[in-house]
């Protein structure tokens, strides 16, 4: 289904992603990039209810603790955004960087909008759900992407494909697992100590976390 995009890309998140602390000399360019991204996006989402199946790692088990079912979901901004970023890179790398980082924020916003709508789809006997948990996060291997995408029929439903190295194409896409339960559940965010990136994480080097 088509996702209704927000009117604006979250500027604070966008600046943060760009590694900038102020708008000096950026305001107009960001506005132009925002308009182009909203125009180039073909945001779509799909989901399916699934029984909980065995997945490697401890974090996903903690995430789904107390859950009876799960929702598998995928959202994408579509290939138009990738094309816009590529095209800009040929003439103006700075602008391409603005598009790329803005699209990363926009897909998060689109995923939030889509996830919020999922609450309306929950069955009456299981009205609670966790947050999103994605393959590649914590100790849930990126390889899980393949099976997840197949189960939501991602290519046919929203045009999302998975590369041989388990990366999503179009680039600006998110897949996730959400636990569904008959009682309130919080889900689980992996902590640094169990994350596969623990020795290499850029954020962690600077004392921050992604959660």
């Amino acid at each position: 289904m088509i996702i209704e995009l927000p009117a604006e890309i979250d500027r604070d998140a966008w600046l943060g992603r760009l590694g900038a602390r102020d708008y000096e000399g950026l305001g107009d360019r960001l506005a132009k990039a925002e308009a182009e991204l909203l125009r180039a996006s073909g945001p779509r989402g799909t989901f399916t209810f699934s029984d909980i199946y065995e997945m490697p790692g401890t974090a996903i088990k903690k995430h789904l603790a107390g859950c009876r079912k799960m929702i598998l979901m995928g959202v994408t901004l579509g290939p138009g955004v990738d094309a816009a970023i590529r095209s800009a890179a040929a003439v103006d790398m700075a602008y391409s960087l603005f598009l790329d980082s803005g699209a990363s924020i926009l897909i998060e916003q689109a995923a939030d909008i889509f996830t919020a709508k999922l609450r309306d789809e929950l069955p009456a006997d299981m009205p609670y759900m966790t947050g999103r948990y994605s393959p590649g996060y914590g100790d849930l291997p990126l390889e899980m992407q393949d099976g997840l995408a197949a189960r939501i029929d991602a290519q046919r439903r929203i045009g999302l494909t998975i590369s041989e190295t388990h990366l999503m194409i179009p680039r600006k896409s998110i897949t996730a697992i959400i636990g569904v339960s008959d009682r309130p559940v919080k889900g689980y965010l992996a902590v640094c100590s169990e994350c596969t990136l623990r020795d290499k994480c850029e954020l962690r080097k600077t004392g921050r976390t992604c959660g």
Partner: protein
Amino acid sequence: MTLAINKNKIMLLDGGMGTMLQKHGVGPGTVPEVLSIEQPELITAIHREYVEAGADIIYTNTFGVNKFKMEGTGYTAGQAADAAVKAAKAACGENTLVAIDLGPTGKLLEPMGTLSFEDAYSCFAEVAAQGEKSGADLAVIETMTDLYEVKAAVLAVKEKTSLPVIVSMTFGEDGRTFTGCGIEEMTALLEGLHADAIGINCSLGPDEIFPLAEKLCAETVLPVFIKPNAGLPDPQTGEYAINAEEFSAAMEKYIDLGVSMIGGCCGTSPEYTKNMKAMLAGKSPVKRTAPEPKTIVCSATRSVTFDRTVIIGERMNPTGKPRLKEAILNGDYGYVMKLAVLQAEQGADILDVNAGIPGIDEAKVLPELIRKIQSVTDVPLQIDSGNPEAIEAALRIYNGKAIVNSVNGTEKSLAAILPIVRHYGAAAVALTLDDSGIPPTAEGRFTVAEKIVERAGKAGIKPCDLIADCLTLTVSAEQKAAGETLRAVRLVKEKLGLRTVLGVSNISFGLPNRPLVNRTFLTMALANGLDSAIMDPGDEGMKGAVLAYELLAAKDKNAEDYIKAYQDTAAEEKKESSAGSSAADDTGTFEGVFGSLKRGLGAETEANVNALLETNDEITVINEYLVPALDRIGKAFEAGTLYLPQMMQAAVAAQAGFEVIKKRLAGSGKERVSKGDIVVATVKGDIHDIGKNIVRTIMENYGYNVIDMGRDVDPAVIVEAVRERNVKLVGLSALMTTTLGSMKETIDAVKATDPECRVMVGGAVLTEEYAHEIGADYYCADAMRSVEAANQVFGA
């Protein structure tokens, strides 16, 4: 072989396979295509139900049969295809045809994804050839969203089998596929490739597809087939919304459109087929009125019809352009890509691409240019070459329906070029010259055009796919020649009904004020029936002439385009003149350069460089102005007083300044300024390229010639580049832990080739320690670090 579509009967296609498998208890997680091998009787039983319900054509259980999707199942694609065809044939009597089904590979092709055109082709070729061998009667390519993948599949069927082929794509309600392909593009490509029928399937129900089918029927001369889903599925239960009676009732209105075949896709079952069979009883196909032939070309997502004046961008032709020639010879395709995007922004409808440099391997370079250009713009391309081998290589990998520029009336050209144009379904420029040269009179050129039309017809090319070029000759050499050209345009247009094109600016060689002569000649040619001009889309005078002509010839309805183009002109002029008066007066000084970089203003940087070049040579401007100014920006970035976006804007502004210098050097024949060649790439398996692109931009500004190999680059390709150009520094980027292995592999391969070659690496998941562990010489935490590494290697 062509499909014997029964003109007296609407043929019935089968319905969903997935739905039926689910009904038989096959759960998610099972690869349905494996069942053809492991439970062939189940597959045969399902097919039989469709046959008994009245299906005339059944699709084999091979939708997902290809080497990627069969991986891990223990079977090859060939085995699965063979078993599937046999299981289908076992269910069919003499009157039912078996179609070997080819679905999408599941991988996106370049440039969106990483699958190459050739790999996609071989995937389809394997299954199609096996299908024919095992006894399939035809091939069906279905549920496609990417026109490029369609092209690979159709060519595979056509070249590797003699089966008829029918093709359907799947659309959203907006009439576009997920990848942005529309009905026009699909039709242009498939008519060109001589598909036997064209259709729409999946995604939507019969009511939602209907308006799209109406459009398709109005657009194409090919037989049309439609296979909708049973409405839309309920996300919770997966049940489809429309039952068999409703479906059949909804399909009835398609008959009046003149469709040749109908069937069902996801959610439909033999019951649906049975209902449609009853609905079709006593009905015969409705004859469609054939659409007017039109001249149309396309990329995967954009089509151009020659019903308004078409502007063909001429700037990607190295003849007489030293900077472009130098770029192509150095493999600096970034410069060419930039020209492509700029011309598209300036309003070019089509881009001419030419790699004709003496001594160059055109058959290798031209397709590479096409690949690069179509990765950054969706403006359709015109392949400009006289070399049949180069034309074929370029046409093959072109994503859409291209124009070949050109075929002419010589026996050699007709014999070599026409079959290629026919095979790949292209359009072609028909150049009105022959073995005796350019006929001096209009009548002579008309005769050549007539001959080309006749020969093209014999080769299977329609007149609407020929665009006549009646040749612009230099008016200063032969003043009456312009009149002959114009008369020839009128003649071929009126008597042969051909569309026409001219390379306009040839007219004014050797004359002062060339733009005036060019646009006047263009206006005269338009009035004589010219349909398209090969010209510089940045030439506002010529573009204006086109707009004004369209207005006066009543082609621009309500003068919309004209007014849109010029209503703000007055305001703009005022703004510009006031901006000009307040321009900083430090232009041509170091502070002027630094200020323009810091503000990220390319045009201002150019102005500064031009001013400096009046009193300095190129090297001085680089070494004493541009590079020190960039250094100051870089230091501010390192000190944290200026951030990545501002640094990048400065780098892009600086590029504009460097470009001024490169053009001057190329034009004067002086040696280009390069501190050394550096290869950069994102490693195999990784598709994150923004970091690599940032490094490229910054390194170029520091005077390095950066050979950007792109993303997902095979180690062997990098090694080849290193060897070919004796490169001493390679920069590799990887962003995933999963692709670090690939980075190590690449480093090993580079070092094995040339132990002297240094490797610098970067990417979010790397650390200094790990970088050295995998054999890298330099770990670059950011782009400035790569400049330092390069300066060390090259002793700068």
